[in-house]
């Protein structure tokens, strides 16, 4: 298993170790992991070096799970080293896999970013949809290239079951992705006039589906091929912002692009152009293959995943509970007010409606009241008038 130093890698390793028929898990990464890897064997190796072949041979691995395809660098890394790990690392790893006769199964983590994000794309991407505009750079391009090499490998080694999992945005209580840090901002900058559709997949579902892909398929299912992995349903960015209680600040698209590139140049943030495109046009994938062929049903929907993330993130400046309570108070005031209001207006027209009949008696003293105008204006006024009536 590659990419052990990442949170996802460690989650997967620990999940894998719980399986009774798993003999040994060998975790590989160029950096020593900070997360606990349990009883897994950690081998410090850089997948960009041919040494990875020796690791495979030494442990006679029958399954390789390649998770070291990521968009962000670990501490100290930069974009070019990430790209190298993604592309060169995958090439080295696949080369090593090809020479390993014991290998039966290869699982590769990819991303739905391979579809890009453009206004001319269909609303829902299937595994077979060809994107209108191929990603021009960044992680999305890495993922496209990685998938290309994996396809080549699958042709050369038809005896190895190859599973490519295209994950939607991975989210969960402790996830550290650019999108997660975006949602942790106190105010969310959005692109003016666009409300992208987003899909999330929970990290627990990610480990589950990786487990399913790296084992013998259950009867009636296949885990050989390319699958979109995403939670059910869709959330728009505005919905997300409201659910996580963050106000949004719409900004013109050119300004967003400019600020983004400026921030990157200054090294303040690594918010990539593809992230901006995602937050402009959004991306939704079809998960029918995942359900019907892979037989995987995520436990968390997109909305539940986001709720889990939101509850761990803590309320923002506009917590939904508070807003809901405010509307609740308004409802109370208005319906309470509405009742008295009816009574009052019923008085005003003297029995215009049946409920007004009873109150007509009070109407006499109420009606000519000089303070009626100002008092009647607000909900508070309504309540005060009720109390006057009550005392009378």
């Amino acid at each position, binding site marked *: 298993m590659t990419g052990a130093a990442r949170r996802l890698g460690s989650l997967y390793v620990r999940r894998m170790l719980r399986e009774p028929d798993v003999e040994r898990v060998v975790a590989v990464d160029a950096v020593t992991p900070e997360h606990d890897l349990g009883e897994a064997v950690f081998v410090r190796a850089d997948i960009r070096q041919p040494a990875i072949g020796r690791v495979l041979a030494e442990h006679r691995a029958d399954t390789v799970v390649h998770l070291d395809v990521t968009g962000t660098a670990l501490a100290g890394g930069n974009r070019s080293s990430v790209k190298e790990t993604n592309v060169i690392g995958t090439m080295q790893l696949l080369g090593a896999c090809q020479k390993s006769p014991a290998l039966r199964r290869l699982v590769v983590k990819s991303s739905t970013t391979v579809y890009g994000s453009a*206004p001319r794309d*269909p*609303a*829902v991407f299937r595994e077979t*949809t060809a994107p209108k505009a191929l990603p021009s750079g960044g992680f999305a391009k890495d993922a496209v290239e990685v998938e290309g090499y994996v396809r080549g490998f699958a042709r050369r080694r038809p005896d190895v079951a190859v599973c490519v999992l295209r994950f939607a945005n991975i989210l969960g209580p402790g996830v550290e992705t650019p999108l997660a840090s975006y949602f942790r901002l106190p105010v969310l900058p959005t692109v003016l006039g666009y409300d992208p*559709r987003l899909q999330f997949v929970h990290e627990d579902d990610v480990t589950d589906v990786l487990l399913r892909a790296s084992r013998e398929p259950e009867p009636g299912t296949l885990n050989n091929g390319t699958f979109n992995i995403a939670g059910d349903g869709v959330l728009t960015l505005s919905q997300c912002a409201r659910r996580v209680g963050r106000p949004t600040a719409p900004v013109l698209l050119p300004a967003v692009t400019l600020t983004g590139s400026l921030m990157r140049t200054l090294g303040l943030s690594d918010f990539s152009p593809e992230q901006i495109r995602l937050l402009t046009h959004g991306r939704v994938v079809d998960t029918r293959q995942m359900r019907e062929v892979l037989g995987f049903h995520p436990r968390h929907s997109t909305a539940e995943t986001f709720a889990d993330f939101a509850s761990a993130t803590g309320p923002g400046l506009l917590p939904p509970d508070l807003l809901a309570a405010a*509307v609740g108070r308004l409802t109370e005031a*208005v319906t309470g007010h509405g009742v008295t209001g009816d009574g009052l207006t019923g008085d005003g027209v003297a029995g215009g409606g049946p409920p007004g009949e009873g109150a007509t008696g009070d109407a006499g003293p109420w009606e000519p009241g000089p303070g009626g105008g100002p008092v009647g204006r607000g909900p508070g006024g309504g309540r005060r008038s009720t109390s006057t009536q009550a005392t009378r």
Partner: protein
Amino acid sequence: MADAKVIPFDDDRARRRSAPRGGRSGGDGTVPLPAQGHGDSPGPGTPRGPRAAQAPHGVQDGDGAPRRGEDPGDPGPAPGGGSGGLERRLAKGLAFLRRRVTGEYEVDDFGYDAELTDEVLMALLRPLYEKYFRVEVKGIENIPAEGGALIVANHSGTLPLDALMMQVAVHDTHPADRHLRLLAADLVFQLPVVNEIARKLGHTLACAEDAAELLARGELVGVMPEGFKGIGKPFGERYKLQRFGRGGFVSTALRARAPIVPCSVIGAEETYPMIGNARTLARLLGLPYFPVTPTFPWLGPLGALPLPTKWTIQFGEPIPTDGYAPEAADDPMLMFNLTDQVREEIQHTLYKLLVRRRSIFF
């Protein structure tokens, strides 16, 4: 966030509108109170009308003649008809507001926000539909009550108002409460704000993938195969159908085994009589055409006001597609024949409706 603003904005507007009314009527205590109630209910477009109409009756029925003198035109007695109704509506409106501000509403994979469409966007379009264009709908029963169907219509009028009116027509008159999912040009999804509203209204990109997906989900899909050729044609060519693309809509309907419902729209052609096309300007702005009408761009924004023509939308008899074998969708000759059949049907209906039309504006 834009849609969140719609509600408070409407809210404010209602309040502002009602405030001067209160002032006009003497501003005594009873007036602003119910007005406030009105203000708090979102989507005041429709409910306001009937209730305002009820109001005078309520006043007259009541015995308080002197009081009526004190506050004439007071919208307050509105609940005279049913105070429970107002309260229910208020509660409903506030529950809606609560769902909007907390984000607890659903959108589908295409970004269709059914609740926002029903409560707000349709209410905004309805005055245009009912009062301005006075749309008359014929043959709504030709739209199947359930299952996928493809509605194919002519396209005209410089701005795609005809598509929106068709959507309101289906939404408001179909007995089975069906929603029309329109297929729109890619330009719609490139423009800011427009794309956001289009997605929320349930529109999606006019491509075979999306159309097939919607039909497979049993949705009612609306398509205008003429595209920009139809909407951007000069006034002299009004009601002459343009080429129907390559007939991709027919093969999509055939694959989905969904019936094709031809639809003819009369009246949209005259909303913006396009007498010229500033091609250079259009190219500069990246638009398919830049319309020049007798009023636009000469009168500025005022010139962009559509002419209040009288519209008729006629849905024709559905053409079944389930009698063809699945591989028929790849037969180009059959596609051309079916496309022509649909086109002829729409063209004939257009001519029939035009002959019957008394005047453009009435």
